[in-house]
């Protein structure tokens, strides 16, 4: 809980929800006849209407990117380190929109909401959504908020994939694309991790083939395992060593199978607390969206050709110790953009935090982010 709201915070924020009744066709062939999108905004849209920024969230993110919902909140929004007055995404100058993606579980239509016109949860019947579907729904939200174009679309990890998709699908509606700790598509190793996560959820007896809400149960163990596995891949070997080493929780070995090491305790805590705030079906959907992302597939696997129509200026950032989406993967994006003759900057941030680094205010990262956003600000003035 914050004692007082920090000067550089967007303050107390309320999530809003918009209902969309125009059907949305999805890549899988199914149609969402109507749906809700939960979102938050920070900062004001200027008169010229050219300062709107879309923030795209990653796997377990949501619309609450910055500020607090109440003075009782233990933590601010997930990207509070970068969004706020005087921060890189400076809300004194930009109008920031962040939404909860379809299929997620924080207020937008998803498996944990009711099917329209029924009293039944979507559960496992919620259609598989893709990055492209999200971008289309984000476009609908943009129009509904009377925003003509995005000055910038920004996202890390799965969020960065949405940024790329925006630049490809709506080239005229995005001026700057900031792709952080992302990849042009998942590797077999990435997909393998996602598959183990999904299997751990689906093999939990409390999963009930996705109908756990009707059965008043939650696949706690499965979702917890999935999160524990995910968490290992978000950290680096170095950061785990620094954070936990081989430190023992009770100071001595138990010679049993309960928690001995601090790292075990940490992972169990992360897993357990995740279960209380996340939906298992959503986890399945989000990992599938990650696995399916491969915009070059439609262009004969030529990533440069994929970006051909893009008109945005690109900023690509990666982190040295990120092995989930390693710097080499970002360099693939940069090479493709250069081959396509696009304007691009690329910065590789020295960081030991692993994939999670994109959420951490590392000085060089923040300076780079600040400088780039400042140049955008000057360009739109």
């Amino acid at each position: 809980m914050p004692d007082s709201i920090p000067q550089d915070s967007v303050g107390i924020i309320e999530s809003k929800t918009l209902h969309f009744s125009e059907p949305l066709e999805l890549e899988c062939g199914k149609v969402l006849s109507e749906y809700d999108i939960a979102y938050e905004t920070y900062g004001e849209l200027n008169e010229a209407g050219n300062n709107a920024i879309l923030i795209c969230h990653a796997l377990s993110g949501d619309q609450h990117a910055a500020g607090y919902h109440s003075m009782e909140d233990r933590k601010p929004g997930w990207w509070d380190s970068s969004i706020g007055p005087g921060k890189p995404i400076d809300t004194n100058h930009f109008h920031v929109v962040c939404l909860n993606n379809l299929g997620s579980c924080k207020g937008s239509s998803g498996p944990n909401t009711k099917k329209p016109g029924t009293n039944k949860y979507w559960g496992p019947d919620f259609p598989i959504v893709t990055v492209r579907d999200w971008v289309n729904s984000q476009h609908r939200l943009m129009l509904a908020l009377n925003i003509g174009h995005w000055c910038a679309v920004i996202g890390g990890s799965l969020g960065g994939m949405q940024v790329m998709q925006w630049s490809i699908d709506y080239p005229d509606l995005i001026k700057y694309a900031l792709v952080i700790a992302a990849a042009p598509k998942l590797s077999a190793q990435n997909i393998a991790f996602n598959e183990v996560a999904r299997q751990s959820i689906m093999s939990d007896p409390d999963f009930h083939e996705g109908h756990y809400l009707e059965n008043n149960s939650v696949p706690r163990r499965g979702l917890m395992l999935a999160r524990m596995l995910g968490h290992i891949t978000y950290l680096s070997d170095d950061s785990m060593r620094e954070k936990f080493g081989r430190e023992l929780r009770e100071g001595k070995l138990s010679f049993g199978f309960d928690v001995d090491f601090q790292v075990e305790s940490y992972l169990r805590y992360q897993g357990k607390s995740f279960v209380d705030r996340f939906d298992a079906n959503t986890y399945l959907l989000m990992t599938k969206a990650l696995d399916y992302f491969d915009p070059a597939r439609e262009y004969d696997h030529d990533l440069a050709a994929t970006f051909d129509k893009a008109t945005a200026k690109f900023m690509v950032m990666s982190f040295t110790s990120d092995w989930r989406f390693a710097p080499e993967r970002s360099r693939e994006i940069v090479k493709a953009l250069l081959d396509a003759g696009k304007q691009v900057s690329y910065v590789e941030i020295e960081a030991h935090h692993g994939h999670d680094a994109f959420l951490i205010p590392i000085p060089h990262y923040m300076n780079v982010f600040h400088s780039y956003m400042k140049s955008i600000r000057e360009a739109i003035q």
Partner: protein
Amino acid sequence: MRADLAIIAEWIKPGSSILDLGCGDGTLLKYLRDQQQIRGIGLEIDEKNIEACLGNNLNIIQSDLNKGLQGYFSDNSFDYVIMSQTLQATAHPDKLIEEMLRVGKEGIVTFPNMAHWKGRMQLALGGYMPVTKSLPNRWYDTPNIHLCTVQDFEIFCRQHGIKILERTFVDHTHSRSSLMMKLFPNLFSEIALYRFCRADGK
């Protein structure tokens, strides 16, 4: 602006595309963009310099030149590839020059001339490694691991099928070539500037 950069700016045709290897804080790229409408991109490794470039709205790629160009650019994708006061600090200057002429139609390099008479005097008479205005570091803290002379560079070009299109020499005050510099560049110039291309014209 440094006089060597001013000379480079004179060599470059307006509207051309430029890759600046070791672009520093982006002074040259910014000048060329604002004054000569070039399309440019810089490679740089230093964090502060990168931040400065981004603040100036320049395209920059954080990269270690000692790892080459890492396959970033396709053949002949730039009109000019520039390396100013950087060549002598790289691990493989020969390979980099080759890369410059692969991705660029023309290359431009500037470097401190190791054979300037002051340096020669210090080494010949004093018996120590030269420390001059254009080579201010001492042997143990210098980033310049591959220093060369005007003569060395021109021999290198001949041996590697590189055609010198233009050359200029300046001293550390960066005033333009004096008569002595023109007559005896290897002895009197402190900074050498070359514009070159492949001799076979490919």
